[in-house]
């Protein structure tokens, strides 16, 4: 049965004006609400461009993109922040503000969208408990392990209750055991109804979770575990 679409790419191509690189070539992908999808591919395959297009950091050269019901190729710049409020982003390098505590880093995401302090005071401790960092609220990022820092990054992505979590190589800077835990945590979040999109090149980790896997190579989708068109490849 077909569900509600979260991300839809139709014949999307992206050529960078600055260097003429064809990053994506006629890519068509459909991701439903509530899905957990791994995007895999080697370095330079077009994974990052795919994410940049979803976040509207870049615009497609051709084709149409719909995210959470919003048409991105027609979206004016002033509406981009409202698109981004529907998604939470987890970065490979965590992107935590070193002078802020764990609590402040997570609260920062709420302040940026104009949430009131009493709402922040209730929500942040709850999210920190959810990612297993309830006792680290007053620590600074430098006092945490890589895995813990990534969990703070995940807490920040989750705190505004987004419909979609985008994780860009979330396990790239942490050890294998912690990597498994992070994906496990993302999987738990997915079970609560949030769509999760994880970009990675760690094939072993991907296999162990048995989720939908889309492989991008040289700017094209070369396999999709849920799409029968690619099963023969």
């Amino acid at each position, binding site marked *: 049965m077909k569900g509600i679409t979260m991300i839809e790419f139709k014949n999307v191509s992206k050529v960078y004006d600055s260097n003429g690189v064809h990053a994506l070539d006629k890519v068509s992908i459909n991701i439903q609400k509530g899905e957990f999808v791994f995007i895999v591919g080697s370095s330079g395959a077009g994974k990052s461009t795919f994410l940049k297009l979803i976040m509207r*950091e870049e615009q497609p050269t051709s084709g149409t993109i719909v995210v959470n019901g919003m048409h991105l190729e027609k979206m004016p710049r*002033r509406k981009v*922040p409202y698109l981004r409020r529907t998604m939470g982003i987890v*970065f490979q390098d965590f*992107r935590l*503000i070193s002078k802020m505590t764990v609590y402040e880093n997570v609260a920062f*995401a709420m302040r*940026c*969208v104009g949430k009131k302090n009493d709402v922040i005071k209730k929500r942040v401790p709850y999210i920190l408990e959810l990612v297993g960092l309830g006792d680290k609220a007053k620590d600074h990022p430098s006092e945490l392990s890589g895995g813990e820092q990534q969990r703070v990054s995940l807490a920040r992505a989750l705190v505004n209750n987004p419909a979609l979590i985008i994780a860009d190589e979330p396990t790239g800077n942490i050890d294998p055991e912690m990597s498994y835990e992070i994906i496990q945590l993302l999987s738990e979040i997915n079970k609560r109804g949030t769509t999760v999109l994880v970009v990675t090149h760690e094939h072993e980790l991907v296999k162990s979770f048995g989720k939908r896997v889309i492989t991008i190579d040289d700017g094209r989708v070369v396999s999709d575990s849920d799409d029968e068109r690619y099963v023969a490849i």
Partner: protein
Amino acid sequence: MSSFGYLIKEGFKNLFHNRLMTLASLGVLISCLVLTGSAVMLTVNVSNIVDSVGDNNSTKVFLDDNLTELEAVYKGKELKALDNIVDAQFVDKDDAIQAYREQLGEAVFANMTGDDNPLPYSFNVTMDDLSRYDETVNAIKGVSGVASVSSHREVAQKLASLSSFITTMSLWIILALAIISLFIISNTIRMTMFAHRFEISIMKSVGATNAFVRVPFIVEGVIIGLVSAAASVGILYLLSDGVINSVQSILNFRYTRFTEIIWPVAGAFCAAGVLVGALGSAVSISRSLKHEGNEILGW
């Protein structure tokens, strides 16, 4: 704390993180405002002098140097006989030199006594109707033995043109300093934005609007403007009385003190400071927001 309170606090923090550029911005903006205030004080006071001189219905009439004292005194009758003249007070050469001595110091005219006195006999002539000033001066000049008429209006006109020159010069200097202030504030804010590009990138990734990102930087510019305005009012308050007191010993008129115009000036300074601060910030923010923080994944 509300979002607005948080943004104001961030604006204050930015000021301290960027101390050197903040001081440079303050310095230029304070110079600009102090100069503006000085020009205002000068214009107001020169205008007072001009009004006071122009309204004075007493005119000095100098007689030919070769007239004897008796002949000179007799000219008074002829002057009084003229239309529009109500009085003509004779001024003796010695009284005239004594008046100068009292004004400029005993040493200046020490040897100019008796035959060495270079001043001519003169009259202080009082007119009835100042609107007929030019016509009356022409009539006085027609009297034989009158060498010249010292018109206060000429002095007033000279002062007015000097005041106008100073005002014009000040306006150009103020304009130049205002542009420099804008440039320096704009650069201060740009440096702050560059230093905060990481935070801006995170802000944008979580969906902060450009307006939200802007507020702390606008606050920073506005604070620079307000502090400059307050400091400039303080400096003018301290300096103006001293300057007026020294000038008063030379030119004794009723001067307008800074305290008499302090509130309108303070209001105008605050408005100008806020405007320049906010404008300087806005210029750099709109330019920088196109670059800083727009790269989220490509950071």
